[in-house]
């Protein structure tokens, strides 16, 4: 067994090495767009993976992840804001910040505790690391807070409460209560941007997050969390302390969400309330649901899909002429009709072509034909630009996945070297098969007759 473990460890290291080589090549190639997309993938990957701990592994639907990111992001941003930006804010008439809050910076703390060496531009990264850590811890505190209602509430209600938390945090952040810390609707500009856009920082922290989450999932704690997901009552009856584990899951998940928030503000080089809207959590939900709720590998896959659509979906949002749109709308309607028929065929529903699908198909075909024929018709001249098509596409993708394959692409399966080498522990070896046959054969073995018919 430990021989296999050695092999797996070596293979994993080789794999990570390969990833590092790829990152190096991307950075060296100078393709800024690609580097930016990959950094975004890593940052959102951290958030999605941490959300999967609650949603996928523990089975609690939490919709307030963007709130944790806000807390972590703003904390990191405030602590890392350079002097120039602070001066700008204090001079601005509309700023809500006080000298106290403007004085919160890791740099000044380093000086104050007598470590001026850590306050130089060369050690910016050390300070950023400290700021990330503090942001994560602060977010973790909020995670503890949100975990408490999870002890008394079930499914839907808890989801709404977590959603409410995400919204409350954002609403409060703009009020007089928290304004001095967040600078209200203005936010901050000038957050150091070289960490959030750096492939090494983002992928490094992503690797750390995935490491912690997967190691946790396959440990006794991970099993306890999955037990809560499977059957809470049975889990409690088997000694699992529900309160501790649920709050633990929220806290750990929130920590990494806070770290992701810190990287996010660095990526955007600014902190604003609008950067932490619900659509973030929605994207992570899509990533988790499409990729596979029980699987961290799947979540990364799903995040890649989401980031791809978000970053490379521009062609969908260009202005196109109206008759092109008419044709497109017609094609979509016809495709929906065809898709519905295909779904009915695969589910063995009769009649495959439900009567209502004909008019739908007809509308689609007519629309396409009209567009093709009447491209010079007066009402069809002009252009239209479809903003938000990428989000619509993601929403449709999510609904489709839920209807067709709710467990996501990868379901519960994790990537593992055992899968690559086709080593399955849950199938009998030939020797065991023979023994099983002997055990179940009533002529040969009079004791056993209740073991037939198993998968």
């Amino acid at each position, binding site marked *: 067994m430990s021989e296999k473990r050695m092999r797996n460890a070596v293979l994993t290291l080789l794999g990570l090495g390969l990833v590092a080589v790829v990152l190096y090549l991307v950075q060296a190639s100078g393709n800024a767009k690609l580097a930016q997309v990959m950094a975004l993938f890593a940052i959102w990957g951290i958030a999605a993976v941490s959300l999967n701990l609650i949603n996928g592994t523990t089975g609690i639907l939490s919709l307030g992840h963007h709130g944790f990111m806000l807390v972590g992001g703003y904390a990191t941003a405030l602590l890392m804001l350079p002097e120039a930006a602070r001066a700008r804010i204090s001079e601005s008439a509309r700023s809500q910040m006080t000298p106290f809050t403007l004085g919160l910076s890791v740099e000044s703390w380093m000086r104050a505790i007598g470590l001026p060496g850590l306050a130089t531009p060369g050690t910016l990264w050390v300070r950023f690391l400290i700021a990330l850590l503090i942001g994560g811890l602060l977010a973790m505190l909020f995670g503890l807070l949100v975990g408490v209602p999870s002890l008394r509430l079930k499914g839907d209600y808890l989801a709404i409460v977590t959603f409410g938390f995400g919204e409350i945090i954002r609403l409060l952040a703009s009020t007089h209560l928290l304004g001095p810390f967040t600078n209200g609707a203005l936010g901050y500009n000038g957050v150091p941007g070289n960490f959030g856009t750096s492939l090494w920082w983002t992928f490094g922290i992503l690797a750390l997050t995935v490491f912690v989450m997967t190691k946790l999932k396959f440990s006794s704690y991970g099993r306890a969390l999955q037990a809560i997901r*499977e059957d809470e009552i049975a889990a409690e009856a088997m*000694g699992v302390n529900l309160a501790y584990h649920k709050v633990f899951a929220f806290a750990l998940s929130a920590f990494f969400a806070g770290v992701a928030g810190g990287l996010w503000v660095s990526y955007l080089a600014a902190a604003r309330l609008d950067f932490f809207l619900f659509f973030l959590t929605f994207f992570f939900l899509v990533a988790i649901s499409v990729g596979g709720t029980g699987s961290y590998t799947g979540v990364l896959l799903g995040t890649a899909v989401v980031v791809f659509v978000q970053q490379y979906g521009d062609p969908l949002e260009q202005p196109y002429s109206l008759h092109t749109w008419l044709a497109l709308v017609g094609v979509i309607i016809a495709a929906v009709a065809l898709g519905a028929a295909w779904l009915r065929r695969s589910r063995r529903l009769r009649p495959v072509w439900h009567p209502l699908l004909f008019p739908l198909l007809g509308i689609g075909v007519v629309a396409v034909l009209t567009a093709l024929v009447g491209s010079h018709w007066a009402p069809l001249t002009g252009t239209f630009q479809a903003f938000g098509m990428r989000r619509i596409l993601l929403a449709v993708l999510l609904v489709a996945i839920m209807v067709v394959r709710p467990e996501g692409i990868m379901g519960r399966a994790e990537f593992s070297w055992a899968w690559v080498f086709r080593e399955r522990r849950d199938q009998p070896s030939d020797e065991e098969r023979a023994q099983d046959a002997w055990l179940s054969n009533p002529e040969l073995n009079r004791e056993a007759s209740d073991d037939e018919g*198993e998968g």
Partner: protein
Amino acid sequence: MAMLEVNGISKSFGGLQATTDLSFKVEPGEIVSVIGPNGAGKTTLFNLITGVYRPDQGDIRFEGQSIVGLKPNQIVDRGIARTFQNLRLFTNLSVLDNVLIPQHHRLRSTWWSAVLRTPGYRRREQQMHDLALEKLSFFGPRLMSFRLHQPVYVLSYANRRRTEMARAMATGAKMLLLDEPSAGMNPKETVEITDIIRRMRDEGGYTILLVEHKMNLVGEISDRVVVLDYGQKIAEGAYQDVVDDPKVIEAYLGKRAQDEADSEAAAGGQA
């Protein structure tokens, strides 16, 4: 000192009195069966003992200490584990996982040592694996080898029952509450289960409280029998005595059957 002492517990749900002034004891190493018609409050009793419900009145003591008001997982810590009438396995998890999870509450490692896979954690994980296999071996080689890694939903009903019982044993409890362990089993399987329960007490050292409907199983295995009806204890004692008790016959079969039994006894006495 009795291992489990139930003293005058009562529980009502809204207007329905599920349990009324119920008292009995279970001594260490005993196998006690709780029987009674449907709706007599047997599963409610289990739920009261395991902390799912809190008794309105009365006390429950385990090894001398009160366990009223404790949460179910705390009661498992104290040493009582249960199986469920309708099976509540973790269906999407493997057999091995199902038998490892009950050991989690005794794990002394912190979560970060688990993540980092420290030698201390690895050692404890290995111990948990060994204990899991030991408990599963109670049922022969069936659930070991490749079945260990199969998800529970592919198992046959009988194997699921066995997994559920192994799970309860893996909690490290001293006392097991088995809720209709032979439900859905044919006579041959029932005999096997009877044997296993006896072995659990003899080899495993468990004290067992049992809810059952099959009288042959109850008669075979129980040291004592407690009979419930409408939430009250109506009889207690050795199986043979309880079975002839007129109140018990009336509860199960009704008054006319009781009268017939009386007249038969009278006729037998005369003849």
